[in-house]
């Protein structure tokens, strides 16, 4: 009986949490028009979330692409279809690996930075001070960070996919000897604009999810050092689960 009661309580807590997050999102969307006026703040956040994540995204893209090239080649070789490596790598990267892995890495690098920044501002009363100065912290501090993350994500995913393709090409064509012509021509025949569009939509939605979770956890963090730490941990874990879950939803919706 106690177990059921606890499960029920967890369900209620989860629903309350979900409702809280949604209301937070709505509040941010309402102040977005005003926040867009301070474009300089948003540019700064695009730099923080996007430009500063470039290194890890590019490194990850390169290695993932190379592994994709290697594994793909080994598998396709069994059926004599090595020439299809190009289209396999491209579709895999653009539709799945690009958006998903970028989102996970984003949550780890940019998401934690956002959460800890806001959490620290919460713990040192900076957010309350702003409220006291009649400046809405959601508009001034939170919304630019959220928008910066949403804008940066699809760009990062595209860069990941391109570098990944290069990695696949590096392994497949230059190392394993797949015919360069087949690699690219089959890719061009097999990849459609629709695939790329789906990939972009996915990474946009992941961008909203990861940025939202990060700023939410930071804004509502317990104002202590331990609280900020917990908030950053929760950001990564929640973002990962939500991204993977959304990935399934979106993939099945697109097919």
């Amino acid at each position: 009986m106690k177990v059921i009661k606890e499960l029920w309580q967890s369900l209620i807590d989860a629903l309350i949490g979900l409702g809280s997050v949604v209301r937070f999102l709505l509040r941010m969307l309402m102040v977005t028009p005003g926040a867009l006026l301070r474009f300089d703040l948003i540019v700064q956040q695009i730099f923080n979330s996007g430009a500063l994540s470039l290194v890890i995204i590019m490194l990850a893209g390169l290695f993932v692409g190379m592994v994709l090239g290697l594994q793909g080649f080994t598998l396709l070789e069994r059926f004599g279809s090595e020439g299809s490596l190009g289209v396999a790598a491209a579709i895999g990267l653009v539709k799945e690996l690009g958006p998903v892995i970028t989102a996970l890495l984003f949550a780890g690098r940019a998401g934690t930075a956002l959460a800890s920044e806001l959490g620290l501002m919460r713990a040192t009363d900076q957010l309350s001070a702003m409220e006291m100065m009649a400046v809405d912290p959601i508009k001034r501090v939170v919304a630019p960070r959220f928008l910066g993350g949403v804008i940066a994500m699809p760009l990062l995913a595209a860069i990941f996919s391109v570098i990944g393709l290069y990695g696949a090409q590096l392994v497949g064509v230059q190392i394993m000897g797949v015919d360069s012509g087949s690699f690219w021509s089959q890719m061009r025949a097999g990849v459609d604009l629709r695939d790329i569009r789906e990939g972009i939509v996915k990474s946009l939605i992941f961008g909203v999810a990861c940025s939202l979770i990060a700023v939410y956890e930071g804004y509502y963090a317990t104002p202590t050092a331990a609280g900020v730490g917990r908030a950053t941990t929760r950001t990564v874990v929640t973002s990962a689960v939500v991204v993977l879950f959304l990935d399934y939803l979106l993939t099945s919706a697109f097919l």
Partner: protein
Amino acid sequence: MNQEAPIVEIRSLGYTVGGRPIFDGLDMDIPRGRVTAVMGPSGTGKTTLLRLITGQVRADTGSIDVAGENMRILKRDALYVLRRRMGMLFQNGALLTDLSVFENVAFPLREHTDLPERLIRQLVLTKLQAVGLRGAADLMPSELSGGMSRRVALARAIVMDPEILIYDEPFVGLDPISLGVILRLIRRLNDTLGLTSIVVSHDVREISTVADQVFLLSGGKVVASGTPQDLNANPSEEVRQFVGGLADGPVPFHYPAPEYFGELLARGEGH
């Protein structure tokens, strides 16, 4: 505006958090243009009172009027307008960490006014001069000592020429010199700028040197009020314990616990 009317009027205020009543029937008048101190033991809700006055939380029952506005029904937009007439100094300064000292003080001006850069610069430097930190204008908050960041926060709090200035435990953790500086500033600013200052503190000796009026809170009610001299002469037990810094009295030394001898003999069962 009637010069004699109190700037903050609190009647029968009730506020409960998580089942625990913090305030229950609190009455208080804070006079205009004077330095008023709000004191009391830890946990009596002094900071909560400040948050009720600034509208960060809403009372459950009773009334609380600040500068003529009924805080219980004030909507967000009107609340923001009211807050521009108030300045608040937080316990740790709460400066924005990625802005310089100058930019921190300029922040309210940039957000709320369209003043030209030249004018902003003059205003900011004037306020920094008033707190003695004009030379530190280009430093970052991480390079300031505790006392200095509080002074910068003070400059920021007065940059919009507020009517009310609120200090939340401004003396905590300061060395005697910085403490003296802050005390002097509280008095000076109040008189030269015609402000009303509300200081929440528990440093009895320090605040008594600058306060005109003192309220002593305990158990969610005002247990004593008057000038610092009145408080010193007050015979009530609670006041005596607080003012004298006595370890035991109405606020007990021992946290509630079962009978001592009995617990010792129990040989650690149940622990």
